[in-house]
């Protein structure tokens, strides 16, 4: 390993680490005005995104502990972009917050954890970075300082994830016991479908299920999403899930290929249960954050379905879908966060007649929901289509048919919100909101993404070249 390799291969991680220290210095030192600090951070996050796009090389560091290649680099840039957008979308809320440096300190630590997570080449590294990615978010969940629900969310997240980590560790140690190695490149040679290894695999998979909030490991999701500040909710539901989907792909396709029949069955069960239960609960929700939480659970069901194909197509379609999901879901969360920051309203009925007072926000939310529901020609349609096609590649049509029926159910509750905004009348609609430019800019980027990623075929083709 040359020193040059180290700097280039780990440039994203190093950049984040430097930012974390910078924030520490600012906090310990004289401090800065919230507004200017926020601008600085947003610029740095944008630079971080640019850094993730350039000078990408393949390579391995620290004896297979850290792996990077063009696919991993692309995944990291999706996460960076998402974090940047979140920082823009929650400008109004953050400006008023008294602990701004800590907020980003924690968020960067978590992002750093995710970077290491998708680069990990070893079960130990995987475990450590998973913890690094999770624990700061639990602290972040508590950032609505005056609300009790926020503390409750933090508490539930940390307890649940501790529980899940325990089972994960159990699984890892079982694997170590059975194979004598924890290295991703050596594991496949030792893996077989013995009962012990299947059990260890289920333990491992439960940790992924937990972070992705797949049924039946999803219980924490709704409470945590509802209680956390929206910036954190969107971070959890988009960035955290995205990173977890990426590493799950690597682990399944590269490491557990010998168990592919086992995990096909597992994914099928999880996927069907997740999309169905997610839909069933999403239908009943009246709080818009809770609604988005359950609808994002249903979306995970589709991601799992795409994963099950065990082919390049599955890989490509999941990465493509996550990219679209980042834009669509952040646009939805963005509008919700703007409205919540200005009016404090989070009930779906509060959105009645929104179109009359806030046409831009209504259209943005409507397009985002169309994309989440998979209505053409938005990008979400193409994302879902490729996931369905990937899921169909094994020839289990009833699997696809069930998924497609779930798509129709989900169409209902997404369209319902559009109806509430556009067609219902209200005597006291939410007043006209003067949104700040940063948030509008971020919403604009999301909209462009929702429209263009589907229609411009370059994106999907580019992702295919990364396989």
């Amino acid at each position: 390993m040359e020193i040059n390799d180290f700097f280039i291969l780990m440039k994203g991680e190093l950049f984040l680490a430097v930012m974390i220290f910078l924030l520490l210095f600012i906090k310990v030192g004289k401090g800065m005005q919230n507004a200017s600090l926020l601008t600085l951070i947003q610029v740095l996050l944008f630079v971080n995104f640019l850094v993730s796009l350039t000078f990408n090389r393949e390579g391995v560091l620290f004896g297979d502990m850290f792996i990077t290649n063009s696919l991993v680099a692309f995944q990291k840039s999706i996460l960076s972009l998402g974090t940047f957008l979140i920082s823009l979308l929650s400008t109004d809320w953050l400006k008023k917050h008294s602990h701004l440096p800590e907020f980003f300190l924690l968020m960067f630590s978590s992002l750093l954890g995710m970077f290491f997570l998708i680069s990990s080449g070893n079960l130990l590294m995987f475990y450590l970075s998973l913890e690094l990615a999770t624990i700061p978010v639990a602290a972040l969940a508590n950032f609505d300082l005056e609300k009790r629900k926020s503390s409750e969310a933090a508490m539930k997240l940390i307890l649940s994830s501790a529980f899940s980590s325990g089972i994960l560790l159990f699984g890892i140690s079982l694997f170590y016991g059975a194979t004598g190695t924890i290295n991703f490149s050596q594991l496949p040679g030792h893996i077989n479908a013995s009962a012990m290894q299947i059990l260890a695999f289920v333990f491992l998979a439960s940790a992924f299920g937990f972070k992705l909030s797949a049924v039946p490991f999803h219980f924490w999701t709704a409470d945590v999403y509802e209680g956390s500040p929206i910036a954190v909710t969107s971070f959890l539901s988009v960035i955290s899930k995205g990173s977890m989907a990426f590493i799950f792909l690597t682990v399944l396709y590269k490491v557990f290929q010998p168990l592919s029949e086992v995990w096909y069955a597992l994914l099928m069960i999880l996927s069907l249960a997740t999309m169905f239960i997610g839909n069933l609960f999403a239908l009943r929700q009246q709080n818009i954050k809770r609604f988005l939480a359950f609808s994002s659970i249903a979306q995970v069901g589709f991601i799992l379905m795409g994963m099950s194909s065990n082919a390049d197509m599955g890989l490509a379609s999941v990465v493509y879908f996550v990219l679209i999901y980042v834009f669509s879901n952040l646009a939805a969360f963005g509008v919700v966060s703007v409205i919540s920051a200005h009016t404090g309203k989070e009930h779906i009925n509060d959105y009645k007649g929104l179109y009359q007072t806030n046409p831009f926000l209504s259209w943005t939310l409507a397009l985002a929901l169309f994309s989440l529901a998979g209505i053409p020609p938005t990008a979400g349609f193409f994302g879902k289509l490729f996931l369905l096609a990937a899921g169909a590649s094994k020839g289990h049509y009833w699997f696809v048919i069930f998924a497609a029926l779930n798509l129709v159910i989900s169409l209902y509750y997404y369209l319902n919100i559009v109806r509430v905004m556009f067609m219902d009348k209200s005597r006291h609609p939410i007043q006209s909101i003067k949104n700040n430019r940063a948030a509008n800019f971020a919403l604009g980027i999301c909209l462009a993404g929702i429209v263009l990623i589907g229609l411009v075929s370059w994106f999907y083709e580019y992702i295919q070249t990364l396989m």
Partner: protein
Amino acid sequence: MPNVIILVLIPFLPLASFLILGLFGKSIFRNTSGLAGTLSLFVSFLLSIYTSFGYFFEYGKANGIYQKLVPLKLSWLEFSNGLSIDMGIILDPISVMMIMVVTFISLMVHIYSLTYMKGEERFSTYYSYLSLFTFSMLGLVLSSNIFQIYIFWELVGVSSFLLIGFYYNKPSAVAASKKAFIVTRFADLGFLIGILVLSFYSGTLDFNTLIQRLTSPGSGELKTAVTTSFLGISALNWGLALVFMGGAGKSALFPLHIWLPDAMEGPTPVSALIHAATMVVAGVYLVARLFPVLALSAPEVLELITLVGVITALIAALIACTQTDIKRVLAYSTMSQIGFMMFALGVSGYGGSNGIGFTASMFHLFTHALFKALLFLGAGSVIHYVHSNEMKDMGGLKKHLPITHITFLIACLAIAGVPPFSGFFSKEGILLAAYEHNPAVFWLALATSGLTAYYMFRLYFRIFWYKASQQHKHHGEGGFAMMLPLILLAVGAAVAGFIPFGRFVSSDGSLLTLPFHWLFSIAPVTLGLLGIFSAMVLFKKENGKADQISSFMSRVYKLVYHKFYVDEIYLFITRKVLFSMVGRPAAWIDRNIIDGLVNLSGATTKAVSERIKVIQSGKVQHYGLYFLFGVIGLGVLLIYVIKF
């Protein structure tokens, strides 16, 4: 060879007008948006004429057979292993015919709306929606790729959703647009799965390649598609039947027709465009597009199409006899005529003189577009005059609306199949094809065509005769912009039958002469005249005979009046079954969908559902417990139940 730029301009001019009117309609084009939209469409229409002239008379034929040309093909998305989605333009007789029909009817509607929609607050929005719809429809008919057709198919759905719901402060209009959108979406789901199945087995999405691979007897793709089966039906049949399901939804075939009558809540010119000439025939067009595969490799699906078509034709005609809202009568009549087109395809063979049904179906599509658009626009003119859709508010209007009266009469004669009007020729072709192929279908079709004459003339007499002419103090007939389309369409409806259609459109591209036998025509024409005569007896003067008959046959009449209770059956099923997605707006479903599920499997499910509710208790220790159960359950399942 065709000029690609001109071809691209045909759909893109309406797109440009949609974008410009959508963005600047309220500022720059405040007063001229109607004119701007009409002009751009007029250019598009001229270009379509130019193209069709070139295709039919210059470059379309090779060795006397019309070719399927693909002058433009852009690879849009490399899917995987050689499967790519292209964006292309296909030129063959049916697509060329369709662009003529779409641009012409759309132009008529544009002109007509200049007066009809005048003073509407969102006038420019209306025109931008019209342009969007025209663009999507043109894109649909020109698609060279089954996936491309799906995208435009959805766009057509979205834009018709916007148009039907144009009067958005009318709750019934909103509900209707929602119903239309949802029923067709449900059908489109089948379409999408059908596309996936077809493309999976043929390894392509391109129409020409797909047809070639799935029709040549020796091809490996065809062999696997026929031999693989699911629930005892071959994959090829599944794929085609599912694609047909999409077509049936858009074309309002039984039993997916329930959205069409309600969709009449939209502005009347919109009904003329969408529900007469363009969108509703998209399903027919789709079946025609895949016709070689259906005819050569999947005759079973073709039989299904025949069955659905003939049932739709008959049921819709029966319902049409009883409706009192004039637009609904026309809606059911459209359904019935589309049923004709469908079963004509169903009874047709492929190639040479076997393909009479195909040619007749396309011919009927063409003539129907003319006379049905005319009927809707005429109805619009009547509604414009009396401000009501109900027959009871009409009667004796022939003096007040002379031009509407004459043109409406021509359209009624055409649809009733009275020679020498256009509908006569196309319907004869269909009946002849049915007679040769399947006598049962023929007799049903014959009865339906008699009913057609009856209900159309019931409508005609009820509007223009019936009562003595009353003194309406309303305005005049609606001005030049409304009368011009009526006259042009009436000329078309009167003489279009003399077009030697088989010289242009046939199943395999060869030249065909539609056979014609005077003796054969006697039965349908007599039956048609009988229908007209009985309508005249009953409705020419207000005489109560119709009421006497209907009270005499009250139970039958009631059954038919309530549209065979199809809506009610739907509601019944949807209350009981999970997918209660038709017939009521979303609010209703939100409340009932879970209850519907619960009722379905009784107390067991209820208990489970209650349990699920309890499970989300908010207590983190419970969550941990369920987590553990989940892990153990999965472990047991994977280790002991599903053995590897």
